[in-house]
Structure formats: structure tokens, C-alpha cells
């Protein structure tokens, strides 16, 4: 039901936008393009759309049809956010942003947030970008993410249930998988601050 709701325009004027950085597409993921992609998702509300259409027409009418610059798009986003009573912006994988764009992006979000405290920002990233996040959002809240045993078990149970050849595995092996893998992952997480966890997709 929630997934279906996600495809529908929201009944109330709350804006939700997300962006996932991807190191494979760094050339196109400039700060200006990322902010523009966020803004696109806030256009579900009429007044925001009108505001952006006006900004577009103004830029188009200028000599040469000037493209968007970062200060322009940050200003447009700031006004769009101010129109909405509440806005959630989720940005994933900050560590996959090139350093220059990461700093610009965080500074831009800080500028918008300063003007619109009703905006809330959810960020994810590897520990190496924590210093940058702290630099711009010193009072931010932080949740360290480590795999939870229960989540790992649920994931494994689901995968085993979907095994196309369940008879090929003995009950003993199945039980060992469900016992040993969550234990090992928990052990790895104890030393997570110094040893990187192998790339196991848990969820």
C-alpha cells in the first residue's frame, strides 16, 4: 500500500525528494544537476510548478537562453521549499559524490535549510564523509548503521525460501547457514571501526 501511495500525488502539501549518488555517473552528477533532480520531485504541487516554470521562462528569455548555474538552482529550490509546509530530502551514498560536488551540495543544502527550517534532510554515507557532514551540519543527528542479527536472519530465511532447488540442501547445512552467517557478521561488526566489512548486501 505504501509503495502504491508513493506513486500518487500526496494529499497534503508535503514534498519528498530523493537522490542516490553513483560513482559510475560522476560526470553528470554535478551539484547543479543533483539539486535540479531534487527539485523535479517537488513539482507535484501546483504552486511549486508555477514558480519553477516562471524561473525557466526568465532564464529562457535571457540572451542566449542561459543554462542553470548553482546559485540560481539553489535559489529556486529555496523558494520551492518555502512554498511547501514540510519537505523531506533524502540523499544516499554521499561518499560516491566527487569531493568538490559533495562540499557544494552540503553547503547548498545548508543554505536552503537556513531559510526553511521546515525542511528535513536524511543523509547516508560511509564513515569517511562524516567529517564533511559535520563541517556543514555540526548539530546533525547520527545513527551508525551496522547489520542487525535479526535482519540478517530474515534476509537469509527469505533467500532460502526462494531457493529454486531446496532438496539439494540438507537441513543441517540450512541450519548452519542460518546460525553461522549472522554470528560471523556480528563478529565483523564489532571491529567495524577499524576493519571494513566485506560487501555483503544484507537487505
Amino acid at each position, binding site marked *: *500500500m*505504501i*509503495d502504491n*501511495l*508513493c506513486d500518487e500525488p500526496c*494529499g*497534503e502539501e*508535503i514534498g*519528498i*525528494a*530523493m*537522490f*542516490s549518488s553513483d560513482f559510475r555517473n560522476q560526470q*553528470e*552528477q554535478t551539484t547543479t544537476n543533483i539539486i*535540479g*533532480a*531534487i527539485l*523535479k520531485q517537488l*513539482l*507535484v504541487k501546483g504552486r511549486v510548478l508555477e514558480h*519553477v516554470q516562471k524561473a*525557466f521562462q526568465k*532564464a*529562457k528569455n535571457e540572451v542566449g537562453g542561459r543554462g542553470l548555474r548553482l546559485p540560481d538552482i539553489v535559489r529556486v529550490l529555496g523558494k520551492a521549499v518555502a512554498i511547501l509546509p514540510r519537505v*523531506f530530502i*533524502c540523499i*544516499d*551514498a554521499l561518499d560516491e559524490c566527487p569531493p568538490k560536488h559533495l562540499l557544494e551540495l552540503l553547503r547548498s543544502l545548508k543554505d536552503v*535549510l537556513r531559510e526553511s*527550517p*521546515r*525542511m*528535513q*534532510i*536524511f*543523509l*547516508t*554515507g560511509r564513515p569517511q564523509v562524516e567529517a564533511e*557532514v559535520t563541517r556543514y*551540519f555540526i*548539530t*546533525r*543527528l*547520527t*545513527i551508525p*548503521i551496522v*547489520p*542487525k542479527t535479526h*535482519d540478517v536472519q*530474515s*534476509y537469509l530465511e*527469505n533467500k532460502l525460501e526462494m531457493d529454486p532447488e531446496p532438496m539439494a540442501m540438507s537441513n543441517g547445512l540450512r541450519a548452519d547457514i542460518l546460525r553461522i552467517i549472522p554470528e560471523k557478521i556480528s563478529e565483523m561488526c564489532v571491529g567495524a571501526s577499524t576493519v*571494513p*566489512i*566485506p*560487501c555483503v*548486501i*544484507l*537487505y
Partner: protein
Amino acid sequence: MNKIIADENPEVMQWLSPLDPGRRHQDVRIDRLDGVGNWIFKTSEFREWRSNEGGADKAVLFCCGNPGVGKTYLRCLIQLQEVGIIADRHQY
């Protein structure tokens, strides 16, 4: 992104950004396992952030972790939850 608005305003969309963030979100939604990661909603940090009572000082929540621990799926979870909250905002 609202598809009708996008279809009716292709020039504006292109002017804003060539990036399409919806595609990645769709992939994550399909792979996500129900119930996994729900612990985040019980943390004091999430509750404080979600309540928005701390104003701009507590408006940013940073989920920090090594590769493969599920940060992207948590981001998806939060986003879906926010949409659900619109239908029932009193649950927090």
C-alpha cells in the same frame, strides 16, 4: 516524480536536470524485504529528527556505515515511511 507533470513540461524538466533519480529508487524498492531495517524507527535519533521539534539544529539525520550494511535500503525505507506518514501522521 509526477509523470503527468514531467510529460507536460519536458523543457522544464531537461532545464532542471538530466538526472532521473526515480529509476534507482524503483530498483531498491523491488529488492527491499518487508520488516528489515524497521529498527531504525525505534531509535531516539530517528524519533528526534522525525518530530522536527529541534528545528534546523536537528533537521539533519546522517546514517553512517560501511559498504554493504544496508544504508541505501534504509534510505528507501525512510522515504516510503514518510509517504505512509502522510496518510497517518499521528503515528509518531
